[in-house]
Structures are given as C-alpha cells and as structure tokens.
C-alpha cells in the first residue's frame, strides 16, 4: 500500500478534477449501447423456471409429464437432478453455503425455483414451466423477525457457513436457531450511563424491505466449450462469480470464464450468486448451452433489501453531550443468508451513528425468515440503522431544547477522534457536510410554518459508512505504440461512470487526452481479479491499482527515454507530448519512444499493479477494532418540506445532499451520484416498500411497486461536493455511490417532525401513515 503524502497540487496531467463526459454517453442516448444481454452467444436453449407457491414446504413430488409433452421442450431439471450431479457443492453463497440454485427437498420462500424447463424458445420454456406440478407438504413458515426469534419453527435445520471463512466456523452445524450471525459492540458501560443521564430517548424503528428495480433486467447464458464453462451474465461481481462457479463445479479457475458488459443499473442486485449458479450448474451437468432471462415479476423475488427492525436508545448529559447509545438491530435476511451476516456486522456496527459516544452497546443480528433472500442494496444495510440513530439524535436535541444541527455539530466525530468501534477517524468531514447542507437550505432563515392546511418544517441528518475492508483490486495497463492505452480491470460500469473515472486516472498520470484510454469490459479470462464493484469501493481501490499501474508505466517510459537520450532517469520527466530531459530540453514523443524501443509499429508495453487493503478483525465479544475499515464515507442531507394535514401528502421544497468524497475526480459524475442516491432515498422515505402478506409479495409488479417519478422530484435538489482528501486515496479520492442515499429518509422524517411535531418511526412515510399519526396526536 502506498503511503506517500498526497498533495492537491497534482504533478501530473490535468484530467483529474475535470468533468469528462461519460464513456458511451452517445450510444446510451441513441439506444445503440450494447448491454450484457446483447452480447452474441451460441444458440442456447431457454430456461423457464417453475417457482414455489408455498413459503415453506417439503417437496413430495414433481410432475413434469405435461411440461415434457409440449413441443419444443427438451428437458426438465429439478434440484434433485442437480444434487445427484453436484452433491453438497450445489449450495452456494458469499458467507453461508446455504442456497441451492433450484430447491432441493424443501422450498423456503414463495417464488423459489423448484424445476427448470429447457426449451427451444423463451415462450415455450415459460409456458412449459407453468405446466409443472409440485406436491408439497406444508411446513409452518417463519414470516417475520419476531416470529423467527421467539418461535420454534426454523427456516434451516442447521447453519451452513461457508467453509472458507475462519470467523464463521464456530457457527457450523448450529441447530434450532434462525439467527445466522450476531455482532456485538460493547464500549464503556452504556447501562449505567443511560441510567445516570438526565435525558434519554428511545424508539422502535422499522425500515421495510425494498426492491432494487434496476431498469436493465437480469440475464445469464452459459455453455461448455472444450471442457471449459463460458458464462455471460449481468453481474457486478465477475471475479466472485468465477470463484463460486469453479468451486461449485470443481473446476480450475481457468476453466471458468465470466464476462459482462456495462450494466443498466444494479444498486447491489446483481451481486454474488444470482442467476449464475443456476445456468452454470445446468450447462455443465447437461453439457448444453442455456440462457435465462428473468421477467420483472421474477426479479422481485430474486433479491431484496433487508427489512430491519431497530430498538434503540440514546442519552445525553445536561451539557448536550451524547453519553450513551444502545441498539438492538435485527436484519430480516429472508430464506438464504446471502451477504446478510456481513451486513449485520459491518453496518450494525455504525448503529450509534458518527458521534463521540463513550458508552455504546450494539447487538446486530442477521435472521432467517421464509421470504425471498435479502442481499446488498446501495448502502449495504446502513440506511436502515441511520434511520434509527438520526431519528434519536433529533429527538434528543429537541428534548434538550437545542437546534438539531447545532446539537449534532457538537457531538459529531472529528479528525483524529476514536469512533465507538475503536478506529481512529480520518478524512470523514461530517461537520463540513452538515454545514454545507444546512447552509444550502437556509437552515436559520425564518420559515412560514403554517399556510392553510400545509405545515412546513426543516430537517437534517448525517450518515456514516465504512468501506468494505479487506479487499483486493488489480489493474493491467497496456500502452500502445500510438500513445493510446487499454486498461484491463474487472470493475463493472453499471452507470456510475467507473470507466470514465479510471480512464481519467490513467490519462492524468500519463498526460493522455480524453478518448485515449479504453477500459475493457470485465472478462475473467483477460481482466484481473477485483473483489467486487460495490460498496462505493472502486474509485479508491481499483483507482489506486490503476494509478499505481500508470505510475509504473510512467517510470518505465522515463527509464527507456533516459536510455535513448543518454541521460539519467532523474533528469527526465513525463510531460504533455512525451518524455522531456531537463538538461537537454529534448522531448521524445511516446510514439517514437515505443517505436524505437521495439522497432515495430503497433507494439505494446504492459504494467500491472495490485492494491490490497487490510484490517484488524474485530474482537468477538466487544466488536472493537483499531482498524475496522480502510476509510469512512461521510454525508449529510437537509430538507425543507410541507405536510398537507388534510391529505397527509408530503411535498419537498428543497433537498440538499452533501458527501465528503476526498477529491472529486469527475465532479459531474460525483454530483450525479449524490443526486441519484438522494432520489432513491426519497423513494425509500416516501413510498418504496415491498409489501408481504403471509410470505407472499402482494405488490411485486411495477404497477403496484412505486418508484419516484419525475413528478415526485423536490422542487429544488442541490448536490454539494465536500473535499477532504484521503491520505491514501488516488489523488485523495474516495467513493460516493452510497453517500447520497444514506441520510435522506431521516432528514425527511426530521423535517416532518419539525412541521407537525410527530416522530414517525416506520418507513415509508405514506400519506396514510402521516394522517393516522395526526389523528392519534389529535386524540391525545
């Protein structure tokens, strides 16, 4: 890891800090952009998936005759067929090996694949899937986290943590529980501190499960070629998928090739094991080329965001200092753990918020229920706990009669402070973000609070998140003889603009202009390992690897040039146009330099670099770590809004959102990330919600599942970039993909509280909820 001190005065070209236009923006606008599903593949059989209509049941028999009788149907595959071929390897998952691609012996949620039809065309495959009939024996389902904790029905007979993680080993084979992971943070003595504190607030908070609804839907194709498995899939984790599939099928890594093109959005939905284990298992065991495309309705049951219950308390002393915080966090992870256990730990740990708190206690659990599996979703479980701590902090301030922004300002973590998890803070400017958003909406300006049936208010919230640590990134940079470059990384551009930013980093180091750097789409045969494209980690991690590779290239160019010019390397530097010798003032262009080095046109030079982060694993009992994370994300949001007390409808007049991004490599893209996050967060605050009835999603179509439309936008939306350079970030940069989302819902709820004097603790803040809160208030 590089430890050189960063300086804002970049020595290099001036690509960084410029709002280069996005790679592929024209083709995306013109509709000619090729998404993953457009990548040509061999002629495949289409898969139609028959799904469970029981939340929890034993499979007693599967009738496939009438499906097989349909012309064009080639085969029907069940979980038992796959189990016979693959045994226990059938079960996969990033933390627990608990999920079969097709249910085996037992179904655990409504919508789980039970049998798969292989047919000549898509329509036949889907029609035939409807003709399959399954005999079930009902098992009492576990429908929510409370039932999961209190009841005696279990989603899994025993826990099956993935064998590769030492920290999960103690859970292997554990029975009679729905809790697959529990993280505990203990600092100081929170019980005593709560008791002694003059002011304590508490709440029962709930954030419902939501759906990612990426506009591009899921697809995957797999086929066998020369004893190798080829996979083309909408995934944001190609390196992970290669590893998972190789393990499942007992193949060497070089026998599995995973490719993806740019994605049309993902937000965490296209991560880890989605369609890939299913298509890979069928393609490999049947030696047939197969393709699966989901319908929008199927996408709703593929993965969701965790519904989370938080019971929490916060206390302050008479001087307005937060002295204690307690939180019991329950993540509803559905039928399969997915990455839930990691979310419960790495997000549960910030459940007290970004505050100086000496006495803190957090219990964060990941809990199985008979619902579709919940996985990562922009924010990785943090928005759900932020909903709790930012509501409590607001109540605490108001109970003390203090301005909620000022109260936060006093208590927020500062550079060099030790956070409740035991790690020293660096480059996380909460106060800068808080000040920026409150100033933007005119926090201290007078506000007309009542206009007819409308009541107006303002609210603010901050957010903290740790970047996933430890992780690994690699970059391979190829400089072509004509001074163009080809960058090989496994970061997936899903609309966030990583291809543009990585190109800017290379261009900055090597003085190349826009369009000179081409970023290759992830292809595990070609592009090197990268942990995941997620958790806002790419700009920092892959960006660092890319920068290192470019710097290695720069140093080699200088070395070669020095040799060619007969001067010492320290006499040379890279400049616009080529390498220049300061003593002779001679300039060699890169084209000439490489040409004379190899004596041929069209030759290439290659440099590669790795960037790996490390952490200190947290203590099993106290959750404390001196280095829990490589770096922190800091953000804040402020809202000014009106509540119509007749209809309960909320109208946002101004929403400001700020994120400390270290350094904005591309300010336009950073602003777009902040805005996109804020809009998504607004949906979560106001109406996004997957509604379950007895384990069935009742609004699992885009008719009934509501996303913000253009008409729901705030009258004014202001993104603000805060730059507090990180000492080891590439040019000081950090990621920003999630920062804009995290504080939005509590900022809006705090403004509602300001407007009507009511604290609502369950999301979303639908008009009905607002009205019934007003009615209850009236009754009191």
């Amino acid at each position, binding site marked *: 890891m590089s430890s050189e001190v960063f300086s804002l005065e970049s020595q290099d070209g001036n690509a960084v800090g410029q709002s280069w236009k996005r790679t592929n923006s024209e083709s995306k606008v013109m509709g000619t952009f090729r998404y993953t599903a457009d990548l040509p593949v061999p002629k495949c059989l289409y898969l139609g998936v028959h799904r469970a209509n029981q939340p929890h049941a034993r499979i007693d028999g599967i009738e496939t005759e009438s499906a097989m009788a349909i012309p064009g149907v080639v085969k029907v595959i069940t979980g038992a067929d796959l189990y016979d071929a693959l045994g226990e390897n059938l079960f996969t998952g990033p933390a627990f090996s608990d999920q079969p691609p097709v249910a085996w012996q037992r179904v655990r949620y409504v919508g789980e694949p039970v049998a798969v039809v292989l047919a000549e065309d898509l*329509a036949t495959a889907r029609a035939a899937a409807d003709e399959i009939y399954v005999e079930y024996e009902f098992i009492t389902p576990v429908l929510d986290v409370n039932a999961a904790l209190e009841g005696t029905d279990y989603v899994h007979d025993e826990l099956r943590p993935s064998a590769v993680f030492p920290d999960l080993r103690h859970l292997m084979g554990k029975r009679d529980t729905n809790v697959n992971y529990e993280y505990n943070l203990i600092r100081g003595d929170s019980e005593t501190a709560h008791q002694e504190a003059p002011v304590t607030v508490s709440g029962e908070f709930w954030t419902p499960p939501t759906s990612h609804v990426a506009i591009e839907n899921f697809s995957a194709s797999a086929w066998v070629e020369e004893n190798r498995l080829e996979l083309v899939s909408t995934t944001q984790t190609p390196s992970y998928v290669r590893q998972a599939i190789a393990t499942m099928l007992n193949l060497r890594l070089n026998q599995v090739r995973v490719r993806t093109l740019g994605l049309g959005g993902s937000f965490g939905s296209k991560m880890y094991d989605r369609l890939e284990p299913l298509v890979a298992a069928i393609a490999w065991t049947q030696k047939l080329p197969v393709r699966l495309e989901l319908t929008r309705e199927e996408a709703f049951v593929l993965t969701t965001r965790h519904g989370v219950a938080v019971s929490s308390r916060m206390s302050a002393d008479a001087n307005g200092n937060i002295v204690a915080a307690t939180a019991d966090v329950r993540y509803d992870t559905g039928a399969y753990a997915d990455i839930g256990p990691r979310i419960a730990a790495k997000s549960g740990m910030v459940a007290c918020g970004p505050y100086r708190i000496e006495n803190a206690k957090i219990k964060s659990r990941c809990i199985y229920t008979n619902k579709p599996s919940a996985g990562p979703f922009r924010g990785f479980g943090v928005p759900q706990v932020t909903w709790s701590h930012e509501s409590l902090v607001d109540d605490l301030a108001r109970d003390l009669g203090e301005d909620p922004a000022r109260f936060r300002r006093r208590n927020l973590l500062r550079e060099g402070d030790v956070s409740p998890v035991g790690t020293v803070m660096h480059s996380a400017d909460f106060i800068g973000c808080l000040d920026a958003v409150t100033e933007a909406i005119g926090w201290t300006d007078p506000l007309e609070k009542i206009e007819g049936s409308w009541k107006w208010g303002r609210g603010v919230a901050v957010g903290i998140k740790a970047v996933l640590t430890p992780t690994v990134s690699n970059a391979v940079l190829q400089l072509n003889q004509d001074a163009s470059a080809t960058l090989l990384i496994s970061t997936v551009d899903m609309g966030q603009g990583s291809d543009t930013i990585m190109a800017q980093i290379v261009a900055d180091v090597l003085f190349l202009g826009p369009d000179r750097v081409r970023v290759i789409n992830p292809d595990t045969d070609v592009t090197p390992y990268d942990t995941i494209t997620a958790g806002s980690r790419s700009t920092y991690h892959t960006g660092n690897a890319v920068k290192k590779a470019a710097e290695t290239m720069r140093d080699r160019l200088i070395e070669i040039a020095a040799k060619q010019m007969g001067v010492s390397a320290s006499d040379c530097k890279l400049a616009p146009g080529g390498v220049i010798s300061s003593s002779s003032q001679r300039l060699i262009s890169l084209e000439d330099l490489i040409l004379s080095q190899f004596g041929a046109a069209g030759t290439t030079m290659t440099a590669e670099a790795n960037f790996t982060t490390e952490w200190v694993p947290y203590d099993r009992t106290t959750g404390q770590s001196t280095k829990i994370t490589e770096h922190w994300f800091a953000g804040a949001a402020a809202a000014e809004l009106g509540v119509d007390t007749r209809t309960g409808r909320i109208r946002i007049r101004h929403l400001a959102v700020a994120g400390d991004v270290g350094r904005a490599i591309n300010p336009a893209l950073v602003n777009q990330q902040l805005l996109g996050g804020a809009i998504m967060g607004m949906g979560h605050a106001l*109406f996004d919600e997957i509604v379950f009835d007895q384990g069935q999603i009742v609004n699992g179509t885009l008719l*009934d599942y509501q996303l913000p*439309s253009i*008409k*729901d936008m705030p009258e004014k939306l202001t993104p603000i970039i805060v730059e507090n350079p990180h000492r080891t970030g590439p040019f000081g940069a950090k990621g920003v993909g999630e920062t804009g989302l995290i504080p939005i819902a509590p900022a809006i709820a705090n403004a509602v509280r300001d407007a009507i004097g009511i604290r609502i603790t369950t999301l979303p803040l*639908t008009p*009905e909820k607002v009205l*019934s809160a007003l009615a209850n208030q009236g009754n009191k």
Partner: protein
Amino acid sequence: MNPRILRPESLADACALLSQDEDALVYGGGTALQILRKQGILSASSFVDISGIPGLNNLHHTGNELLVGPMVSIRRMETDPVVRESVPIASAAYAKVANPRVRNTATVGGNIAHGDYRLDPPVALLVLGATIKATSTAGTRAIPIDKFFIDFQLTALNRGEIVTSIEIPISNDVVASTFVKFSSLSANDWPSASAAAAIVARDGEAQILRLALGALAPTPVMTAVDITGMREAQATEAAVESAMLIMDPLPDVRGGVEYKRNLGRIAVENAVRNLWRDRQSV
C-alpha cells in the same frame, strides 16, 4: 399459452369472431390485457384486434354531442381542442390517466371496458351522462353510463360485445365542472380517490350538483344533490354527506378504508371549491 391475435377488417367480422369463441377478447390498446397476459393469469384464447376496422377512431362533434370512437387514444382525448372545449372535465380526466406512454397507447373503448373501479375517465363520463354503444352479432344497443358498471371488475358488456362509440352530451346547462384526483404513492400512480363534479342548471334557477367518485367503491359511483340557493359551505356539506353514503372503499397497498374515505371527502370538498371558483368567474 399466448392468445392468437386476429385482425378483422370489418365490424361484422370482428363480431363474428367474438361470437364463435367464448374465450376471445377484444383488443384495444392492450395496456391492460398485456399486463394480465405477461403475468400468466389471463384466460383468453385469442385477441380480436379492432385497430384495422375503419372508422373506429373517429371523433365527431355533432353540435349537442361528442361521438368518440373506441379506438380514439386517451392522449387524443387529453389534447384535442374540440374535446377540451366541449367537455373539459372529460379531457381533464383522460389527461390524468397514468403517463404519456400509456395514454398514447390506451384507447377510449378499452379504458371503459376494462371496468376497473379506479379508472379516471368513467368518473367524468358519469357526471356528463354519457352513453356507451355496444355492438355484437345480436345488434347494437345503447347503455347509459350509470348502468354500465355493475360490480367489481364487471361491466354491463356481454361476452362478444364491442364498444363501438361513446356519446358524450354537450350541454349548455353545465355551469361549471371539475375533476380532482389524489394518488397516495408516486404522483403518476392510479388514484386512491377521484371526484368529478358539475353544476347543472335546471329550469332557470334550480341547480343540481352531479358528483361521481372513482376508486372509492367497487365500481365508479355517482350521486346528485340539489344545491339550489345554497352557499358554498352548505353545498360542500350536502355534497360530502351524499358522497359518504356511496363510498365503500377497498383496502389495498395504497391505503385502508378510513384513509380512502377521508381522501374521498377531501376530493369532494376540493371539487366543490373548484366549482364555486369557476362559477364566480363565469
């Protein structure tokens, strides 16, 4: 399995196709049918697409009536100046349907035949007293709109009948009219409550307030109140009282019964306020 698509070129052929197959459905714009088909729950053997039949997308102003062909798009009802001028609440209600993409594709005939209790346009058509013409091999009959919606997702159309026109009376007696829609989730969503209202003059002084509600009962519903000589507050009270009697909302993800009744009440209050404002400014 997917329904077959049939494309008759005359009304008689379409009627014949429908009479031969009990599971055939008329296909208008397909915005409702395609959703059911894609969800795999539609029971239909074939779609009889009537877009190729000449004359079904005509819009005709006769002086005292607007004759609307079933294949006229919802978007046209929203934007056509003739519709806007002659029956402004109808135009306003069509303008509130879904989003421009749906409005460009969906048809007037398909909209009313869909029979959903939350549809916006029928509420305006109720207030205006429209008549629906339906044709089958048995001939053509006229169905007054207040007899059209029978029960939840059930209209007076018989199997095999095609809506061939909607006749909207244009009356000089309409003093003021308004359409109010509330959705509870995103702004483009189906309504959770809607109200269309008009003040109609009768025999000189007498004034009747015609009021129809959408999304507030298993079908669109309608009531009328004599508001002769009333002031705004009295008329509002009378309208609300009458409206509350015909509300029977269904609870769903968009809200419970009490919430919807409340929203319905506010829709009516707002409607009367709009009417009074418009009446003053005449």
